[in-house]
């Protein structure tokens, strides 16, 4: 698996797909630390380095905090820089995530979603990346290995765009995607290189000793706010850049991407919103329920940061009822993070549908088609009556 010269269909796990994308991107610097379920990405990338398949300087750091610290400095030095992590590793980076975003460093980081301790658990939920949703990173979520692969390649272009200049995390569900064998199309190496172009995009390099600059100065009351305001602008600009990059990527790959995917929503009365691998299961449920004559559909969010609020409203406002499925909780006792975001977006619409929240799958608890069917059935009941019996439900848990 050292090169790919033509677009070919291959069987890869999500981790293999991510590692392949990293090899094809051929970053100038990777600094990473292994953690389950991301470990294989670091192992496979180590092989690429050992075999000379990449020109990357690979910094085998002693922690994720140092991984993010190192790639912030390497990105500041004009080097295209990547890392990858999961769960507690992402949590250990927390301080540096905010700094990476505020320094406008276009780092790309595959995140293999895993439940955040405690109690310690190695399996999938979204508590890790959802906890980082306000760190200033662009967040892309993937339904399967193909999307993880495609998103990682697009992330390079999105993050490095001069109007954006923000770090991007590309999330895939731990084990469910990362360790499951999938069929996907891999682009030829040269197509990936042509698509991402020359790396770095750092206007002022830390290594420019003839034009010395200070990176990360003390920023007090009279400037900090302006810099944070500019950061918001970068995230706003991503609304234009993400579709532009997707269009170009479709030209190269034949695969189309948007902020979210609408599955059989044309005439749907009831729409369920999910992100990640659950979308695959939910699409099957939609097909089954459509066969039974129910007007149901699915919205699968790909881009959670920036939040495509206006587009989500457009998609959801004419529904009779909407349910949001969250694979993490906020512990606010007021629902999960996707629920908060989508329900908030709908507030400005006068005739907004009732929205309910289902929290499911924490710590890798299986989500079954029967459970998703229950979500649809209960939401159809809300659509019929206009009444929610309760706003937040926990699915598949002993209560």
């Amino acid at each position: 698996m050292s090169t790919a010269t033509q677009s070919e269909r291959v069987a890869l796990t999500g981790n293999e797909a991510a590692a392949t994308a990293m090899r094809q991107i051929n970053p100038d610097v990777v600094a990473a630390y292994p953690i389950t379920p991301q470990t294989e990405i670091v192992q496979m990338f180590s092989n690429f380095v050992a075999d000379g398949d990449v020109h990357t300087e690979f910094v085998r750091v002693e922690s994720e905090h140092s991984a993010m610290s190192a790639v912030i400095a390497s990105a500041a030095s004009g080097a295209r820089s990547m890392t990858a992590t999961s769960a507690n590793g992402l949590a250990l980076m927390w301080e540096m995530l905010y700094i990476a975003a505020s320094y406008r460093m276009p780092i790309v980081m595959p995140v293999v979603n895993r439940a955040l301790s405690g109690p310690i658990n190695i399996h999938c939920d979204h508590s890790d990346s959802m906890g980082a949703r306000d760190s200033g990173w662009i967040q892309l979520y993937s339904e399967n290995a193909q999307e993880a692969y495609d998103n990682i390649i697009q992330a390079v272009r999105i993050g490095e765009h001069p109007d954006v200049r923000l770090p991007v995390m590309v999330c895939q569900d731990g084990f469910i995607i990362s360790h499951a064998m999938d069929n996907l199309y891999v682009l030829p190496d040269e197509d990936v290189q042509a698509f991402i172009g020359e790396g770095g995009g750092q206007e002022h390099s830390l290594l420019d000793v003839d034009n010395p600059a200070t990176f990360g100065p003390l920023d007090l009351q009279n400037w900090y706010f302006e810099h944070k305001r500019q950061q918001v602008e970068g995230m706003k600009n991503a609304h234009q850049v993400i579709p532009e990059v997707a269009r170009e990527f479709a030209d190269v790959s034949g695969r189309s991407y948007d902020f979210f995917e609408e599955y059989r929503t044309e005439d749907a009365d009831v729409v369920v919103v999910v992100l990640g691998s659950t979308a695959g299961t939910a699409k099957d449920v939609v097909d089954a329920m459509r066969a039974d004559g129910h007007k149901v559909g699915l919205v699968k969010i790909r881009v959670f940061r920036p939040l495509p609020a206006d587009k989500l409203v457009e998609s959801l406002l004419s529904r009779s009822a909407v349910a949001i499925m969250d694979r993490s909780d906020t512990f606010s006792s007021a629902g999960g993070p996707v629920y908060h975001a989508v329900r908030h977006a709908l507030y400005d619409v006068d005739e907004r549908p009732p929205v309910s929240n289902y929290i499911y799958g924490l710590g890798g608890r299986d989500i079954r088609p029967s459970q998703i069917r229950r979500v649809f059935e209960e939401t159809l009941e809300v659509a019929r009556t206009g009444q929610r019996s309760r706003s937040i439900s926990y699915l598949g848990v002993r209560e």
Partner: protein
Amino acid sequence: MAVNLRELSKQEVSLTGGHRLCAGCGAPIVVRQMMAAAETPIVASVATGCLEVATTIFPYTAWANPLIHSAFENSAATISGAEAAYRSLKAQGRIDKDIKFMAFGGDGGTYDIGLQSLSGAMERGHDMVYVCYDNGAYMNTGIQRSSATPKGADTSTSPAGRKIPGKPEHRKDLTAIMAAHNIPYVAQTTPAHWRDLVTKTRKALAVDGPAFLNVLAPCPRGWRVPPEDTIDICRLAVDTCYWPLFEVEDGEYTVNYQPRDKRPVSEWLERQGRFRHLFRDENKGIIDDLQDVTDRTWERLNRQAGD
């Protein structure tokens, strides 16, 4: 590598005036002497702390060389990322200059919260020099004890109280810990011994791989000494053997300075307000203890150096 003061004085100043470090602060003296010693362009990182907050207040910077700061505990990891970028871009022919890398941290950012990051960077073998400016407490946040604070010192989190007479614990021997990393170059010096400091900076920059310098950097506020005494108090630290000048080159120890008249540690202590309470009768044992540890460390160093 002759050190010529006339030549050094002609070097461009890398840490320019106008910064807001206190009068008498040891840190900028250390940085300026080191930068003057460097014969190759330097890219530096700095940990959050006095040196950083007082020299980089946006939109100003006192630094004439490229500098990056991102957090408190990661100066070593940060410069290792820059050094990795340099190696990568140089190998690809995208950069042609020769650049050397230095990381600065106070004792808080080095002995304590940044120790893991430092240890990792040293073990990985980056071509970098890590400089600890050791002022023996968290001075930036208001003189809290660190693991570099000497036993008995009165700090804001180890106050000399009615029951507990200052910091109960001895300081960590960080230079020994760094020597145990078996890196090419480890040394200890002070800004009062400028010839020693310049020579060691050049040796540290010259080795292929990581180097560590532990530099005593008095804090007049925290040590409660007059600002004009900074250099004197460094000399006394060396003449009492509290802060020996030594270096470890590929595992070989050299003691660089043997005081002709080794002074008792109490002479160093009595000049500093933070140790005033130790001179009360009931606390004299702490001074004896400090003398004992100083003597044993000094003897061990001389044994290691084969002197």
